[in-house]
Structures are given as structure tokens and as C-alpha cells.
């Protein structure tokens, strides 16, 4: 058997092309190549650039005949997009949870700061700290936490929107590949 045809056969077997179809394609190709050779033509003159890549040629032919699913590209696209959606959604969820934790902690610490500190907490009271100064230190760290929480919340919400948009855009890609 022609080595090119043999290589095609291996690819068809690997792709799961039904034997009768593979036999038919192999037989047609074999006699065509034999006739071309008898005419003094090279395989390249019959097959074009495909003569240098039997597996791709075999896969393309089988796909065009509709005997194997149409291309790995579609499968890859289908797999990649949900992964991206899940990753973005997961990231958004973590960001929102982080934001909520930060904002909740900040709110409760703000409540604590607002209460007058009991005297025994400061014992042995090494140095009196002016109330205004304590309030300033406390406000500055609260502000940082609030900003971080807000940023995380925004990131989380943007992530949620993106994941939703991708999910909506993904729908047409999941349709079966068009013929041809």
C-alpha cells in the first residue's frame, strides 16, 4: 500500500472513522495516486500541499465527509470558555467574600472604637493618650479597611458582570458547528 495512504488509514482508525468509509477513501486515493504516478505526476500534484501532511489531510477529508466530528478547534473553544467563566466567577466570589469580611470587621471595630475604652484595658496606664489622637489612629486604619473592602467589592461585582457576559456570549459557540 502507498505509504501516504497507509498513514491516512492510521489517522482514520485513530479518529474512529467507520471501516467501510475508511476502506472506500483509501481505495479511491490509492488508485488515484497510482494512476498519477503512471502519468509521471507526483503526489503533490494530486494532493497539493496536503501531500506533506497525511494526518491533517485524512482528518480534513473525514470531517468534510461528515464521518467524524468537525475539528478539535470547536471542542477546544467549548472547553476553554466555561473554564474562563468559572475562573472569573470564582475570583469574583472570593473578592466579594473578602470585601464583606473586611467591611464587617471594619464596622464592628468602628463600633468598638466608638465606645469609651474601659479603664482596666489600659492598666497599668503607662501613658495617657489624648482621645483625639486615639480617634485619629483608629479612623486612619478604618479608612484603609473601608477602601480595601470597597475595592474588593467593586472587583467582585465587575467579575460577576464579566462572568455573566461571557456566559451569554458563550451560547452561540456551543451550537453545533455549521456544515461546510
Amino acid at each position: 500500500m502507498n505509504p501516504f495512504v497507509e498513514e491516512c488509514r492510521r489517522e482514520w482508525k485513530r479518529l474512529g472513522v467507520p471501516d467501510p468509509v475508511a476502506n472506500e477513501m483509501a481505495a479511491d486515493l490509492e488508485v488515484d495516486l497510482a494512476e498519477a504516478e503512471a502519468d509521471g505526476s507526483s503526489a503533490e500534484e494530486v494532493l497539493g500541499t496536503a501531500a506533506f501532511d497525511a494526518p491533517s489531510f485524512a482528518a480534513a477529508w473525514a470531517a468534510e465527509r461528515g464521518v467524524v466530528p468537525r475539528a478539535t478547534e470547536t471542542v477546544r473553544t467549548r472547553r476553554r470558555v466555561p473554564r474562563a467563566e468559572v475562573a472569573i466567577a470564582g475570583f469574583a466570589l472570593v473578592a466579594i467574600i473578602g470585601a464583606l469580611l473586611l467591611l464587617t470587621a471594619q464596622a464592628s471595630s468602628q463600633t468598638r472604637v466608638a465606645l469609651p475604652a474601659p479603664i482596666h484595658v489600659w492598666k497599668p496606664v503607662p501613658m495617657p493618650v489624648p482621645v483625639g489622637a486615639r480617634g485619629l489612629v483608629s479612623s486612619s486604619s478604618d479608612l484603609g479597611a473601608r477602601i480595601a473592602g470597597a475595592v474588593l467589592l467593586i472587583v467582585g461585582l465587575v467579575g460577576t458582570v464579566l462572568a455573566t457576559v461571557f456566559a451569554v456570549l458563550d451560547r452561540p459557540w456551543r451550537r453545533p458547528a455549521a456544515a461546510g
Partner: protein
Amino acid sequence: MAIGEGRRTQLLRGALDLCLLAVMEEGPAYGYEMTKRLRARGLSTVGEGSIYPLLGRLEREGLVETYRAASNGGPPRKYYRPSAEGRRALAAGVAEWRAARDALDAVLGPVEAEVAA
């Protein structure tokens, strides 16, 4: 690949299905026979890829009918001929091709260019 060859390949690739339908409209043909008919008109498929996947698509789309018959006492070959739908597709495709060619000619025709030898 040179730019000119690339353009030629793109142009022919877009019309190769019509060319196949046209050569089999002259008379049923098997794969290699179509290659020979195309070559006889100066259309080599070397750069354009193989006709076999294209024949597979035409068959799947119902644009061609096939049958097996011996060729000159040789092994049985798969012959292709346009189906009724294939003939309609050929007529529509040729009309599209001519319209596109005329439009391109209108733009490119007046250009005076000399191809360097």
C-alpha cells in the same frame, strides 16, 4: 509564499468548489480525473490543497451524486456528477463569480501596471 501566490491561492480556494462542479458537469469524473481536467485548463491544485476534502463536502451537502464504475478496465472508481441541487449551486456560484469579477475589473482594470519579468 510570495504575496502574489498567496492571493492566487486565496482566490482559487474560494472558487475551487465551483470549478469542481463545472468540470464534472462536462461529464462524470473520479478524483484524479478532475485534477487532470483542471490542470488541462491551467489550474493546478498544488497550492490550493487537495480536492478530496472538498469532494467530501460537496457529497455531504448533496451537491454531487456518486456511483462506482470500472475505468478503462481498471479497478472500480468513484465517479462524481452534479446533482440537481449542485447544478443550481453551480449556476448561482458562477453568477456570483462573474459579478465579483466585473466589480474587481472595474476597479483594477484601468490600472496600468507592468509585471516585471
